């Protein structure tokens, strides 16, 4: 069995699905390079965290039941997010603790679910990737991955194996960036203060690129960097590890810029 390819379902997460498909493709490439057979179940949506963290336990259970069903039968479920993976690993079993029948399925899924980078290192045993990037990076530890799943050294180990990459430690890398799911819109002023601190620390490293393992944090920090006019690229760590730097960094895609604004391009149907 050991040399058979494990069948891995990629749980892209709702943010990657909507905002940054590049991360999904990077994750798929990393998984394939680590000897996995990758599937992307089409029925996947969201892990249910927004409902869970806003106190709507009933809807969270319903969503979780759907997720459990969607990912049944795979050897592993891997998400390019510590937050969503922790939701399944740590919180799904707790959600169904009064319902023994579902609790078993929830625990089964929890045991099969991993955050991407730690899956590559801890489950697939990879200590290095084949990638190159001539430049400096710094890495932010996203809270859930760090504290709920113990993801800390794994991304650093793999990043150090990237040829040419210069990794600068981020001061207070373990302090929250202020995203916190709906927190950032429920308490925007406090969230802003937190991301201000993060941006200050990112700039202090002098790195050209900021990396992290969760798109929520990345969008938040990117949004603040751009608002402040700071020119530091932002990417998901998987993009660097998978060597997918040919795609523009977060928020830099200019898909139709080449199309002249006049005459109007309304007649041309573009994909």
């Amino acid at each position, binding site marked *: 069995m050991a040399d058979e390819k494990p069948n891995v379902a990629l749980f*892209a997460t709702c943010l*990657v*699905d*909507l905002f*940054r*498909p*590049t*991360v*999904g*493709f990077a994750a798929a490439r990393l998984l394939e390079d680590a000897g996995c057979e990758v599937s*992307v179940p*089409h*029925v*996947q*949506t969201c892990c*249910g965290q*927004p409902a869970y*963290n*806003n*106190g*709507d*336990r009933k809807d*969270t259970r*319903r*969503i979780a039941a*759907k997720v459990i069903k969607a990912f049944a039968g795979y050897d592993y479920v891997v998400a390019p997010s510590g937050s969503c993976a922790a939701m399944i690993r740590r919180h799904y079993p707790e959600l169904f603790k009064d319902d023994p029948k579902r609790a078993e399925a929830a625990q089964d899924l929890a045991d099969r679910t991993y955050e991407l980078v730690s899956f590559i290192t801890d489950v697939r045993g990879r200590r290095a990737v084949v990638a190159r990037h001539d430049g400096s990076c710094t890495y932010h530890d996203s*809270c*859930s991955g760090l*504290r*709920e799943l113990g993801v800390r050294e794994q991304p650093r180990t793999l990043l150090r194996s990237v040829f040419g990459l210069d990794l600068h430690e981020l001061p207070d890398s373990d*302090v*929250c960036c202020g*995203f*916190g*799911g709906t*927190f*950032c*819109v*429920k*308490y*925007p*002023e*406090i*969230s*802003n203060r*937190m*991301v201000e*601190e993060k941006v200050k620390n990112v700039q202090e490293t002098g790195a050209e690129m900021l990396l992290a393992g969760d798109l929520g944090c990345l*969008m938040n920090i*990117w*949004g*603040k960097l751009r*608002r402040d006019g700071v020119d530091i690229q932002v990417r998901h760590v998987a993009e660097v590890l998978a060597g997918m730097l040919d795609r523009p960094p*977060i*928020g*830099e*895609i*200019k*898909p139709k810029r080449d*199309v002249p604004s006049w005459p109007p391009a309304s007649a041309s149907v573009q994909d």
Partner: protein
Amino acid sequence: MQSTARRFKQNAHEAMADAPLQKALGNIKHGFIQKRRKAAARLPEFEALRDQAREIKNHTLAHLDFYLERFEQKVVDNGGTVHWCRTAEDARRAILSVCRLVGAKTVTKGKTMIGEEIGINDFLAEHGITPVETDLGEYIIQLRNETPSHIIAPAIHVNKEQVAEAFRKEHTHLEPGRLLDDPPQLLAEARQEMRDKFLAADVGITGANFLIAETGSSVIVTNEGNGDLTQTLPRVHIVLASLEKVVPTLEDASTILRVLARSATGQEFSVYTTFSTGARRADDLDGPEQYHVVLLDNGRSDMIGTEFQEMLRCIRCGACLNHCPVYGAVGGHAYGWVYSGPMGAVLTPSLIGIGEAGHLPNASSFCGRCEEVCPMRIPLPKMMRHWREREFERQIRPTVARTGLRLWAFMVRRPWLYRRLTGFAVHMLASWAHGGARLQRLPMAKGWTAYREFPVPEGSTFVDQWRAHQRQILEEELA
């Protein structure tokens, strides 16, 4: 104490615009956090001690009635009195009646958060008894007519210039031209002022870090020695403590003490750890004539058996405040009541109601740093989430937010609908951005775009792109 927790957002807004406060909060990062980290690293068994400490409190809470009655019996055996107080009002009355019995005019006080909780200072003053805070931080905020902004460093929001100003205003009998520029000068003046007050006081009130059931002792930890002078010099010592402070044995208290100071200030032990067991005995050289314990419930026993029971393990070390990025941004006063930071976000709704304190458990990004450092391993984020669940069940939250959440949940459970709507969202965001990669304003997400740019999706969704990609591979293989 009057709560302003309801206006948390406004409080936070004002706090973030308060430059001296922000500077003071900045000091926490390089003070308490570093010191705790080093202290924990120096002790190989620190993590094991945390487990033991948790188990001690879990055991005690499971048999709380037994240990409290045992504690009372021991106090009585030693000649003291325990006053069982269900409410804050009961506790205030109990203290007043003891003070009146001895004709007290002034009362010295060690630092006690329960004293803040029941508003004892104002109450005594209303009844003609002068309360004097003897902890330096508490003394400063008493002069400034403020409440503590941190459970172990009550005046952490005050800078030394503000302290000097308060001293000049209060100590009018001293030379107006005296120098008060440095902390040692301030400290010397406070100490000098305090001496006479210690000697003049009729009653000394302290809090308690522990009540020990096997001996009937109360334990306080301080760094200034003010607690010792408060409880040994006056004729009467009143211990004001909430009921979850009890532990079974001296050994148990010692175990928890090993994680307390390390978690709080990064000290191995506080400078003074003082055990009081009853009044002065016949052959004692000093000590009070009377020993009273005012044991306060004030809603805590209602937490037993609920999802908030674990909160009663809290030993008030303040580590969760020090490590909380929200506390670090807004400080303690913004929370609007006695307790702040993550422990306040869980405890305050239990004590004054979720209707009043609803903001507190919501104003957290669930970063989990509090739980990571809590010496008693209290799952603070989990309990904040439980409060949010209670709010949701009771429909306290705004209807718009609730409805939005329900609609979103409806969609998420229906992948076909979800795919259509996310596809539509991609299209809309792209068209609003006019081909650009980011949006500066988004009507649906003002909280976001007030401070941050909003990214436009790269193209179609990942699942759609993946499908197209797979189809292409298949077609190439077939061709």
